[in-house]
């Protein structure tokens, strides 16, 4: 028979009162339909209202409940308690980010990088009367996988390059740049290139590949980065070898 409770060892950090996080244990009901986030909500509602963490949709879409569960970056809304039975389960904030309080991290750096790659369709828009921008299923398929990104930042948490050098633009931002570069309606690839070919851009990636392994939406940021490296390298080669008109 399954035990009826499981222990969560939760990282607590009270800024101004503590120099670094400490673990605090809570016993929560172990139900087979409960995820780690349900456990945290139980702690917040029933045991300790001072615990701080982010969450919203509970269904793997909003990307706010990313945390480190037993050392692995996870969406806590999609990580079942029973996977870790009999426990204990260590719940810590996402790695590689400054911790503001308990399980809440500072995401300003990611948001800044995200906006630098212009993750939207860039083009000189024609008036609506000229009709919509048509796209074939094949053209959609070129970038569809990358458009699944929910900005949960698990990939940044898994990326040792970002952990060592926070100037690195990082997996999700580059994958999203690719999402728009590969979109047949977009004309902004040249705008994004400056950010991406900077030493802190594409070439910072050493293809560890953990971003892809932890991605809950199967975006494959590592693949996106390597493919873009290949594109940039081929374009550079062509610019040396081909006459201007053929590029």
């Amino acid at each position, binding site marked *: 028979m399954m035990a009826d409770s499981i222990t969560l060892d939760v990282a607590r*950090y009270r*800024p*101004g009162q503590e*120099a*670094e*996080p400490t673990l605090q244990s809570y016993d929560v009901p172990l139900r087979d339909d409960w995820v780690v986030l349900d456990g945290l909500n139980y702690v917040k509602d029933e045991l300790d209202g001072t615990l701080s963490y982010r969450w919203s949709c509970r269904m793997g879409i909003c990307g706010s409940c990313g945390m480190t569960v037993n*050392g692995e970056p996870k969406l806590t809304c999609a990580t079942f308690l029973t996977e870790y039975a009999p426990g204990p389960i260590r719940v810590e904030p996402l*790695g*590689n*980010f*400054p*911790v*503001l*309080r308990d399980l809440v991290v*500072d995401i300003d750096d990611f948001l800044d990088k995200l906006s630098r790659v212009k993750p939207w369709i860039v083009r000189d828009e024609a008036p609506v009367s000229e009709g919509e921008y048509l796209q074939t299923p*094949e053209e959609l398929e070129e970038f569809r996988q990358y458009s699944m990104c929910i900005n949960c930042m698990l990939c940044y948490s898994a990326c*040792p390059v970002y*952990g*060592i050098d926070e100037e690195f633009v990082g997996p999700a931002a580059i994958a999203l740049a690719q999402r728009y570069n590969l979109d047949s309606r977009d004309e902004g690839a040249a705008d994004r290139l400056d950010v991406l070919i900077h030493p802190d851009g594409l070439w910072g990636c*050493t*293809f*560890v*590949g*953990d971003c*892809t*392994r932890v991605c809950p939406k199967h975006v*494959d940021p*590592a*693949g996106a980065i*390597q*493919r873009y*490296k*290949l594109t940039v390298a081929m374009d550079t080669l062509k610019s040396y070898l081909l006459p201007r008109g053929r590029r």
Partner: protein
Amino acid sequence: MTTDRSTSFDVRPPAYRPRMSLWWWLSKWSYLLFVLRELSSVFVAWFVVFLLLFVRAVYHGDDQYQDFLSWAANPFVVLVNMVALAFLLLHTVTWFGLTPQAVPARLRGRPVPSSMVVASQYVGWAAVSAFVFWLVVGW
């Protein structure tokens, strides 16, 4: 009434900044495999040097060639070459495995499955190895 909101936003309590340990690559199997894969390039370079030394010995005649062979039979050199071979295999296998992620192959407009890309590399490897075997051993 106006309130100065900027000050209330600017006064942030100190955030805790985690530092990467020097030993981060031992914390996960995938990190360790990555570091070993990167390290393998040193051994690839070693085999290039070894091959160049071999070619030079052949070029300089029989005495030098015999010297090279006895040096290469030195237990220490054999040990280094065995370690280098292990890393070379790791290098080959890991990079073959990563290729489909970096190069999306297409055949007549349709994406080729990852397993096909990986398999074609092994076929190529086997073909080159067979050719080298034929070249060296004769048959």
